[in-house]
């Protein structure tokens, strides 16, 4: 799992004691790079979020201050977008989980005896990664547009009101988020289910458990690390995404998410403190959710 990739305690114990000078030499450039271009940016984000407009009143010029009210302003002004981001992200995560579990189960468990087929299906799952993220979202925009065969078909069957749209609605945004993040859910689920020992399932049915009971009490708990990993991998980027919800893609006037607000404040309105405070809010909320979720689901070795 990506989220436990750095956990491996066993390797640490086995690592031989050797000159730490070489270790330092190997680590220093990369770590310095990350400090300079990952940690320092987070600090400058924090500083920027507390800045006050310049006394001269120029647009886009700010002075270092301790204007914590920026956060209050951001939350009251963009409360809708913040809530919407997490709502959309939760929905997309749930749909992606429902979509991916049977898929990952088939690839990881049922297709075990055919490694070639298994690999082929895995390639198909990650295939969307290899075509531009923006172009595949635009493809859905065309496929779901008012003139598209799908929408006109739905209207002909009276499943959709004649004046209704799909693009530009929350439905389209959640659909886009779900589609784009399905592989994030499928891959970790597959990784967990691939290791599932099917003898446990047989033991369950031998003990006259209903297949659904076996699934609920054996399969799900055994694949829990994959579910946790998949949920985090889907939820985090979905909450911060601003491509799907943007008006040129699948969103409309009422679908802006926190990412859209950060982008427009930073790059268009040059309101850096607002963008920075929203980024900090997003980061804090995500870290809090991740921590609680990981505690609850019992896999604490993620970090």
């Amino acid at each position, binding site marked *: 799992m990506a989220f436990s990739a750095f956990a491996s305690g066993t390797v640490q114990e086995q690592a031989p004691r050797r000159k730490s000078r070489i270790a330092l030499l190997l680590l220093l450039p990369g770590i310095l790079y990350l400090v300079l271009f990952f940690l320092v940016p987070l600090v400058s984000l924090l500083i920027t979020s507390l800045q006050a407009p310049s006394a001269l009143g120029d647009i886009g010029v700010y002075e270092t201050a301790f204007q914590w009210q920026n956060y209050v302003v951001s939350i009251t002004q963009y409360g809708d977008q913040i809530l919407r981001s997490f709502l959309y992200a939760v929905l997309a995560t749930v749909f992606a989980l429902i979509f991916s579990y049977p898929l990952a189960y088939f690839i990881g468990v049922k297709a075990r005896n055919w490694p070639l087929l298994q690999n082929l299906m895995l390639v198909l799952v990650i295939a969307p990664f290899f075509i531009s993220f923006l172009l595949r979202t635009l493809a859905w925009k065309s496929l779901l547009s008012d003139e598209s065969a799908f929408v006109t078909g739905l209207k002909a069957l009276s499943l959709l009101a004649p004046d209704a749209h799909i693009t530009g609605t929350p439905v389209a945004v959640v659909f886009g988020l779900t589609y784009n993040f399905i592989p*994030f859910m499928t891959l970790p689920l597959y990784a967990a289910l691939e290791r599932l020992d099917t003898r446990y399932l047989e033991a369950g049915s031998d003990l006259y458990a209903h297949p659904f009971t076996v699934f609920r009490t054996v399969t799900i708990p055994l694949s829990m690390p994959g579910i946790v990993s998949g949920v985090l991998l889907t939820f985090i980027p979905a909450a911060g995404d601003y491509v799907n919800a943007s008006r040129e893609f699948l969103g409309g006037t009422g679908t802006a998410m926190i990412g859209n607000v950060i982008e427009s404040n930073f790059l268009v309105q040059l309101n850096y403190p607002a963008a920075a405070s929203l980024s900090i809010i997003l980061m804090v909320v995500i870290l809090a959710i991740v921590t609680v979720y990981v505690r609850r689901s019992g896999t604490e070795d993620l970090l």
Partner: protein
Amino acid sequence: MTMQEGRAIAAAMGTPAAMGTPAAVNTPVSGGRKPNGPARRFSLGRWLLPVYTALALVFLLIPIAYTFIFSFNDSIKSNISWRGFTLNNWLNVCNAQDVCSAFGNSILIGVTATVIATTLGTMIAIALVRYRFRFRSSISLLLFLPMATPEVVLGAGLAAEFLGAGVEKGIGTIIIAHTMFCISFVVVTVKARVSSLDPALEEAGRDLYGSPAQVFWRITFPLLLPGIVAAALLSFALSFDDFIITNFNSGSATTFPKFVYIAASRGIPAEANVIASAVFLIAIALVVSQQVSAAARRKRLARVG
């Protein structure tokens, strides 16, 4: 592939299929089946799952097929409605100059960021597995956090830093940003390879009076190479498709995804579909050839062993 997609790939690494080893096959215990047991009861379920899987995979491929088909569209300005089949877009990709120069920038940025990130990340991976040092857990945390931070925060953070330092944004700042988020992925990928390396091979080299440099370049490095190549390909893919972080740190410079984003409001030229389709075909060819060569190696090993 965007940075987020790299996370998912990293999550699936370490599975037998990804490592190129045959999957553990749990042969069912054939005895002890009850005559009217679950084997018969769920005959519908037996067909439901394969059919669902096939439909799900088709669903995942729909936008790819769309992009590919519309790369052959005889479009004039915007590439939305089908106007007839043509090969012109493929033959004259650079007729749409903006697309072509954006694509060139993406390649330049991708290659540079990949080289830097792969070098730095490989060094860290070797140190993490082979040496003991203090602050180990803080370093692991520092490597993990960029992968758990939303891209919009990474992008806005770097942009705020550049703004504060008065650095003008351009291709250089894009390279700095891409290198930053690629390092962690390189570390995860190469680390898996270093851990599976038998230290006895390097000891043998030292026993035969090889200097540390000789041991590294003639034993360690060749053995790590598949992992390093995988990490480099992943880095390039991440860099090539990144839009969110690029958008914050590019200034007036354009990359291929940024071009698509800007063009989205007035219509994407079909040449963009050509480039995306070509990149897709190359990537799939790379993945499939890797799979085939891994399968061939397994067969060879099975014959020898």
